[in-house]
């Protein structure tokens, strides 16, 4: 996107890089290790922190998975922050409009909100895709524009509808308990007695992983980002693949934004950076950290969401910590992660426009 990679590698980073590669090569060991760490964390931390973490991971994880598809296909979508904003906002507006707590045409209004939220997000992604793929816009700048437009549009509409940059409150999703599974010790209450958007996130991560690594489409996405010309000459329309990938990033980000809005927030605050508050950017850092692995992105989102909820827990527990400084911990983490794991290689053609027949 800007400068190419530099040639030097710090030894520290090399070690981490090697560790990561070796983990990637031994998925079973990685899985077992991951589960062990996971259980340890579950066992030693308060339950309220765990549920908060899970809920706050939703927009980060799903936006990150969406971002993976776009970027893997060669389109850096820095506008996912904007997609989170519009989807969360429109979902809540739709629920309020159809009637809080009711159902329309047999479908609960909350799910209508979800649907429309995703749709709006996809529309914005489509706008972004057209601008980048048809008109050869610089992806980073177009992405920033999408963010800025969303940042203005949501409170703008909110003021017109509600006479306030903040929307009304709606009744949020309720917990869905899976009968037997929720009885599993340690993880049952967390993973199988939770809200729909959390299930969506878990399913989304698995679906994202499957789609990317097991299907034809996934292979095309990878090829389109690494060497679009190769894909083109293999008879696949690169443009279509990129459209699909960017729209898919709209779907995932939409699920994340709408799920977060309907399941966790129940209201949309439009002042400042809005209630999304940079979660889309954290999502980008998350998938870079995860080296574009959807499951990795899920785990990474736990890290960031967990750090974020940690401060609330610590404060409530009476630790006198300077809040302002604590708030920056996740962001510092992002930088540290980038510095030490920065070897994440961007897809070769990421950020470049591709025109079939160009030499």
């Amino acid at each position, binding site marked *: *996107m*800007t*400068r*190419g*990679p*530099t040639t*030097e590698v*710090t030894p520290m*980073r090399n070690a981490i890089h090697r560790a990561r590669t070796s983990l990637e090569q031994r998925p079973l060991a990685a899985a077992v290790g991951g589960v062990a760490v996971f259980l340890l964390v579950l066992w030693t931390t308060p339950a309220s922190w765990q549920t908060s973490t899970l809920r706050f991971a939703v927009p980060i994880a799903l936006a990150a998975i969406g971002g993976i598809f776009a970027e893997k296909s060669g389109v850096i979508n*820095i506008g996912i922050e904007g997609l989170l904003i519009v989807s969360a906002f429109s979902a809540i507006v739709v629920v309020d409009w159809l009637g809080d707590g009711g159902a329309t045409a047999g479908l609960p209004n909350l799910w209508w909100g979800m649907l429309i939220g995703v749709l709006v997000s996809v529309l914005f992604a489509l706008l972004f895709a057209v*601008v980048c793929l*048809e*008109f*050869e*816009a*610089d992806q*980073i*700048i*177009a992405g*920033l*524009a*999408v*963010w*800025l*437009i*969303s*940042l*203005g*549009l949501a*409170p*703008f*509409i909110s*003021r*017109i*509808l509600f006479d306030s*940059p903040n929307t009304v409150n709606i009744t949020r999703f309720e917990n869905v308990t899976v009968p037997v599974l929720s009885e599993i010790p340690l993880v049952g209450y967390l993973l199988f007695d939770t809200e729909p958007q959390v299930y969506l996130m878990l399913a989304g991560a698995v679906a994202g992983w499957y789609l990317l690594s097991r299907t034809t489409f996934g292979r095309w996405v990878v090829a389109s980002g690494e060497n679009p010309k190769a894909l083109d000459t293999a008879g696949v329309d690169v443009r279509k693949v990129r459209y699909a990938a960017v729209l898919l990033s709209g779907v995932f980000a939409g699920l994340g934004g709408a799920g977060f809005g309907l399941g966790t927030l129940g209201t949309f605050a*439009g002042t400042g950076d809005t209630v999304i508050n*940079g979660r889309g*950017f954290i999502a*980008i*850092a998350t998938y*870079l950290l995860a080296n574009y692995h959807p499951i990795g992105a899920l785990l990474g989102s736990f890290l960031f969401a967990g750090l974020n909820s940690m401060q609330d827990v610590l404060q409530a527990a009476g630790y006198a910590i*300077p809040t*302002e*400084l604590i*708030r*920056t911990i996740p*962001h*510092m983490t*992002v*930088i540290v992660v*980038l*510095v*030490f794991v*920065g*070897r994440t290689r961007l897809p070769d053609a990421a950020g470049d426009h591709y025109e079939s027949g160009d030499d």
Partner: protein
Amino acid sequence: MRDRLESIAERLARASVVDRIVISLAALVTAVLIGGVLVFVSGAFASCRTGLEMGGATFCYNPMQVYYELFLGALGHPLEGGWTLTNYSLATTLQRTTLLIFSGLSVAVAFRAGLLNIGTQGQLVVGGLATAVTVVYASAVVPARIVLPLGVVVPAGVIGTVVLIPLGVLAGALAGGVYGAVPGALKAYADANEVITTIMLNIIAVGITSTLLSWQFQDPNSTNPQTAPVPEYAEIPTLPVVGFGGRMNFSLLALAFAVALMVGIAWLFARTSFGYELRTSGIQPGAAAYGGVDEKRMTVASMTLSGALGGIGGAFWVLMVHGRWLENVPSLGFDGIAVSVLAGNSPIGVGAAAFLFGIFDSGGNSIGTATDVPPELVGILTGLIILFVAMPEFFRMLGRRYVTVDSARPARTDGGDAGADDGGDADA
């Protein structure tokens, strides 16, 4: 003769400067049009006592009025009675213009070096605090008056102005520069993507400065999160005769300084070795390295310069606008991105774009007070402008549709074509 004219016209059309200006203007117009439609349509969903009845709906907002307020309100409504040049709205517009020139230049310098510095905001926040703190502490040690050899007594105020303002600006530039150098170094030596690090550093800047504030620099006489005020004489002085009055918080001197800096940066790019190396790095890092540019150092240097410019922006925000540092810094740095993008990263263009966004800011206030249209409209317009500026192809395509430019482009002779020697078939 016609050929000649055509070739001149062609050169003009291809000249990138003209290209950029046309595209920027087209983007502005398109964004304004779309914004107008948005305003009009959204008026149907707003509630108002009286509005335009059309097709069963009531349209509450008049886009013409909105733009009237936006553009002319920012100048103080020159078409209405009782207008004076040095009015408050225009002062606000120019105040913003001045500040946006600094942050726009900051972004432009980095962009030209191929670095997307989203971190001007953070650099401005940090630089501003450094300025305020430096000036507040230094003003305590500035001597009350100095007696020059001839017996001329220079009062503290004058000394203060002459010493403290440059000192404050320098402090801002230094702090901003260091804070810009950080992502530069992370990029150069750890390959950390600067877009992400600068976004993060913006948030971290808020955390750090607010912690510093509550730890040490909070004005004890105030409950607002802010530093103690700098002495009156350390604020940027206004030109009493031609300028805007003191309570306008705008100084023509500051604007002049900003413009001078703008010209200086343009000169740096065009005339100096450093500027040449910076531009080369931005366009083609491989070629820059080949040409003897140490890419890592250039990354750090350009980010430092960029940060310093952001820091200067913070310094002027402190010294010209508030006379102190406040915890909630307006989004001057983010607007700087828009300014620079609209200006095509050209330093001189930054001046024009800054004026436009100055109008947006001040006119935005006008919209907020004089109409019921949500002032967030300005944010949407900014986003739309950036979006359209980012897609020059869109306007080129439009242009090609309506202005037929047939491919009169002369065929380039392929020098040294072997066949050419003995009159073999020419290739075109």
